[in-house]
C-alpha cells in the first residue's frame, strides 16, 4: 500500500523528469523482502522504488533522492534507477538493464568469501532475461555455489516490447535447469505464494546449497516510465488492473478475519501520512550545492 501510494504521489509531480514505476508488481517486492534478513543484500534493476521501500529504506530519503535533494539516499546524485542504501540491506539499483546481475554475483562472492551469514538477492525484469549478463552469472553462481537468489519479476514487458516478442523460453525459469539450479515459476500477484517460494529459495541458498532461480509472473500497471507511451489497449489495461495484488491480499486478510475495516482505514491513513511526510521532507530539503559536482568522483 505504501509503495502504491508513494508511486501515485510521485507520478502526480512533474519536477523529477520521469520515474520508473512498479505499480502492479508490489507482491513480488514485498514477498521477497519479507523473507530477507538484516545481513542480506538486495540489488535490483532500475525499477527500484517498490523494492527499496519493501526492503525498509526510509521513504523520506527515497523521495528526496528521486526529487534530487541532498538529503536523499545517494545525496541526490544517483536519482531514479540508482537508489542505494547498503546499510539498510539495499545494496542498490542499477539502471542498465541486466547490468546489476553480474555485480550481484560479485556481492555474493564477497559474502561467501568473507564468511557472512547473509545471502544476496538480485531482482530483475523479463527485460533483462535476454541479456548476456544473466546467462554468464547463472553459470558462475552455479559453479561456485554462490548464495544468490535470481528473482525474475516477469512483468510481461521488455521496456515496451511484449514478452513473447522478445523471449523464447516457455517458462523463463526453465533457464535454471541448464545450470542445475533449482527453479520455479510462481504467481507474482499473490504475496503469500511469492513469500512461500522465496522462503524455500532463501533456505536453500542460506544453507550453502548455491543459487536459486525464481520467476514471478506479474503485470505492470503503467507504461515503462511516467513519460513513456502506453502501448496496451484500454481493455487490456482494465483486465490487468483487475488483478491488483493489494486488492487480492486485502480480500484474503479480510476473509481470514485478520483485517477489519477499521484496521484497513488506519492502514490507509498511516500510508497517506508516511507519503505526505516523505514529500514534505523532500520538499523541505535542499538540492546539492553545485560544488558537489566534483566530490566523490574518485
Amino acid at each position, binding site marked *: 500500500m505504501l509503495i502504491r501510494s508513494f508511486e501515485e504521489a510521485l507520478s502526480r509531480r512533474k519536477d523529477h523528469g520521469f520515474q520508473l514505476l512498479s505499480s502492479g508488481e508490489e507482491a513480488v517486492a514485498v514477498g521477497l523482502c519479507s523473507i530477507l534478513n538484516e545481513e542480506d543484500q538486495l540489488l535490483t534493476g532500475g525499477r527500484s522504488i517498490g523494492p527499496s521501500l519493501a526492503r525498509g529504506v526510509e521513504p523520506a530519503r527515497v523521495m528526496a533522492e528521486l526529487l534530487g535533494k541532498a538529503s536523499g539516499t545517494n*545525496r541526490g546524485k544517483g536519482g531514479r534507477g540508482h537508489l542505494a542504501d547498503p546499510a539498510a540491506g539495499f545494496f542498490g539499483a542499477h539502471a542498465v538493464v541486466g547490468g546489476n546481475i*553480474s*555485480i550481484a554475483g*560479485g556481492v555474493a562472492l564477497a559474502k561467501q568469501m568473507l564468511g557472512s551469514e547473509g545471502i544476496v538477492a538480485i531482482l530483475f525484469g523479463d527485460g533483462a532475461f535476454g541479456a548476456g*549478463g544473466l546467462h554468464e552469472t547463472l553459470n558462475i553462481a552455479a559453479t561456485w555455489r554462490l548464495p544468490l537468489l535470481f528473482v525474475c519479476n516477469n512483468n510481461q514487458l521488455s521496456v515496451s516490447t511484449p514478452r513473447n516478442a522478445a523471449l523464447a523460453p516457455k517458462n523463463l525459469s526453465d533457464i535454471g535447469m541448464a545450470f542445475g539450479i533449482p527453479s520455479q515459476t510462481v504467481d507474482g500477484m499473490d504475496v503469500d505464494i511469492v513469500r512461500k517460494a522465496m522462503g524455500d529459495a532463501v533456505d536453500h541458498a542460506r544453507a550453502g546449497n548455491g543459487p536459486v532461480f525464481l520467476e514471478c509472473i506479474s503485470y505492470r500497471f503503467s507504461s515503462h516510465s511516467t513519460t513513456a507511451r502506453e502501448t496496451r489497449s484500454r481493455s487490456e489495461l482494465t483486465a490487468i488492473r483487475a488483478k491488483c495484488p493489494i486488492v487480492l491480499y486485502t480480500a484474503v486478510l479480510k476473509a481470514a478475519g485478520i483485517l477489519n475495516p477499521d484496521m484497513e482505514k488506519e492502514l490507509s491513513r498511516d500510508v497517506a501520512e508516511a507519503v505526505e511526510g516523505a514529500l514534505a521532507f523532500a520538499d523541505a530539503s535542499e538540492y546539492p550545492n553545485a560544488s558537489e559536482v566534483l566530490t566523490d568522483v574518485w
Partner: protein
Amino acid sequence: MFFREAIMRAVREEMRGNDRIVILGQDVGAFGGSYREFDGLFEEFGAGRVRDMPVAEAAMVGVGVGAAAAGLRPLVSITYMDFMMLGFDPLINYGAKLRYKTGGQLTAPLVVKTTAGAKGQGVAHSQCIEAWLMSVPGLKVVAPSTAADAYGMLKAALREEGPVVFVDHKRLFPVAGEVPLAEEIVPFGLAKVCRSGTDLTISTHSFMTRVAMEAADLLQSEGVSAEVIDLRSLAPLDIDTIAGSVRRTNALLTLEEGQVTCGVGIEVIARVQEILAPISAARVGALPAPVSSNRVLEPACLPDAQRVVQAARKLLKR
C-alpha cells in the same frame, strides 16, 4: 627480473599482506596466467583466492566490481585489452561511477590488469585502447614500461580506493630490468624522465618508451638531443613534468602504439598548450587501420624508431 616476474612479485607481496585480494580471470589458476605472470600464486594462495573463470569478460569484470563494492579487493585479469570492451559496462557504468552515484556510500577498489599491444595476434588481440579509458571520470589508468615500475605501480594499484586499469604489454613480458630488492611503491601521477635532452621532448608510455629510446639514440647521431619521458600514469596525467620539459626544448613529439585520433598524445599536447600557449608539436601512432597478424602488415601499421625520427626531423624542420 623479468617484467612478468615483477608483476608476480607485486601480487604475491600484496596478497600476503591483504587477505581480501583475490585474482579472477581466465587461466589465472594452476595454469599461472597467459604470460605466466601469476606463476606460483595458485599454489600459495589456493583456488579460493586465485579463481579461474569462464571466458566471459563481461562477468569477470562485473563479478570483480561487485565483489570490490562488497568488501573484497579483486584483481581481474583480462588477457587482452581488446576483450575489455566486453567488460566496459560494469567497469565504466558501474565501477567508475559507484562512489559518485551512491553519494560516497560505496566504492569499487578493483584492479583490471590487462595486456595491450601487437605481437602477431591479429586484429582483435592487438589493440591499445587506453586512451578510451582516460576520459572516464572515476577511473585511473596506468601503463608502465619497466619491470621496476610494473612492480611498484601494481602494488600501488592494489592499494587504491577506486577502480584502476593496469595495462601491461605483450612485448614487455620477456624484458628484464632492475627491480629494487626492498619493497617499493611507485605512486600514480608521476611521469619519469628516461633520458635528458635539449632539442625535443618525446612523451610516450608502455612499450613505446623503448621505441622512443631507440629513436633518441638515432637522433643523437644526427645531432638532435631528445628528452624521453615515460608518462607511466595516464589518469592522473603528470602534465607538469611534460610542460616543464617542453618549456626548455620548445618542441613536443608524442608517441603511442594506439591510434592518434583522440589518443593519449593529443591529450598531452592539448594540456601542455593550456599551460604554455601554442607549441610546436606532432603525434606519432599506429596508422589508421586494424593491426593485422600478417608479418608484413603488422609492422607496417605500428610506429617504429625510424618513423619517430622522421617525425622529429619534420617537426624540427631538419
